[in-house]
């Protein structure tokens, strides 16, 4: 199935995640970055999941990555869920969109595309680069 546009579900946003989601409205994808241990991490959270430091911030990503794994959900409206490894390091859960699902492969290069939720933010999905 090609050219399938998934329905976009708005994320639950809370105090921790508001800055991340607000930036998606501007087409920006971030990961967490720890200034103590230097790790990039996902999803963003105030305390670093590697060293527990609170010297953390959002780091802007290029939006480029590689498919780590994926699965096409069959049914009336097939959609593809995937883990994509960002060029910055972390592997994130997402959807692969706007491409022929039957030609997808692990290792394929992908780039981010944002889908508006109608709730003041956008969901980062990926398509073939």
């Amino acid at each position: 199935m090609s050219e399938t546009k998934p329905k976009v579900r708005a994320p639950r946003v809370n105090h921790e995640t508001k800055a991340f989601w607000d930036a998606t409205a501007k087409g920006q994808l971030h990961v967490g970055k720890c200034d103590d241990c230097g790790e990039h991490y996902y999803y963003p959270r105030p305390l670093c999941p590697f060293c527990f430091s609170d010297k953390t911030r959002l780091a802007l990503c290029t939006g480029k990555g590689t498919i780590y794994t994926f699965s096409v959900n069959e049914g009336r409206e097939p959609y593809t869920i995937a883990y994509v490894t960002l060029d910055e390091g972390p592997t994130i859960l997402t959807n692969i969109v706007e491409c022929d699902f039957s030609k997808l492969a692990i290792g394929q290069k992908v780039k981010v595309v944002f889908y508006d939720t109608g709730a003041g933010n956008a969901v980062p999905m990926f398509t073939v680069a």
Partner: protein
Amino acid sequence: MSIKGKAYIAGIYEHPTRVALGKTLPQLHAELAKGVLADAGLSKNDVDAYYCAGDAPGMGGIDMIEYMGLKNIRQIDSTETGGSSYVLHVNHAAQAIAAGHCKVALVTLAGRPSADQKEQVQMRGGGESPPASGFEAPFRPSIVNMYAMCARRHMYEFGTTSEQLAWIKVAASHHAQYNEHALRREVVTVEDVINSPLIASPLHRYDCCVITDGGGAVLVVAPEIMKQLKRPAVKILGAGEASKHLMGGKVDLTFSGARWSGPKAFEEAGVTQKDIKYASIYDSFTITVLETLEDLGFCEVGKGGKFVSDGNLISGVGKLPFNTDGGGLCNNHPGNRGGMTKILEAVRQIRGEAHPKVQVPNCDIALAHGTGGLLGSRMGSGTVILGNQDS
């Protein structure tokens, strides 16, 4: 302090229902408690510890304790790690008994997902969503597609095939044909599995477990209680538990928490993989079994596909008989939680009470493994090793 030899499983009970129309959730828990006490030869007032997970109605055990009228409770544990919870409960009960806190620990699991759907029962609202949910729910993760992604990655890294995964279902179906309570008793072939509809690629319908109602219960008791009972003694030799997750984004879906819970259980039990005559392996999906077998050390990492092929898991045929009740893939996965039924069949094997067609001869040592949550991404793992009186 080791639990080895400090506690026994004195009773087991599996609810015969698979679709619990007309029965409530607390009723199922109570029927299971009654059944397991009858199996052991004990009574309600002997129970001094109660263990349940998130499937139990109400708050952390206290509502079921009230409903069942238990009045001598000295230890309560509502550890919730999804389908693996009940393996952890057995471990915790053995620890509490070894420390002298209680002598007769009751563990129950019940669920009615099929009946809930047919009767359009409103699901209970949970507490606050998991912290990751905001970053996951928009992408429509399902249980199947999350496990399917593990399978895809395992295939990519190790060359595992759909045919190899299918052998796991085939083996389960060979066992299920003898279980009169099994939801699906028909024997299937590798071709049947790979020709069944794709649900979430690369997993087919027959790669997925059944959805059933009912449940199970176990009684864990102190050695002095076991001595007074007539049932065969099943000794708890060792246990391990672990939680594996996304590691802040360093995701690896090719292995499970069994890689960490397994060694702890083997070390405590003082046995090796070669000593295990029978294994109950959590089988929410075929890939769950494959990764778990590798992680528990029954074969090399990446060689699970070859290991499960050609009937190697079929009792009387292969080297490692598994899930001789038909497992979650064919028999029963009550409340979408398969850890309890894994313990029950391991106990039957040690007692020599499995179906004669699948009973492993001289089954002195057996293993049961539970998996909860999402394989690889956020999961609980519990491993327990059981033995007969002489082990």
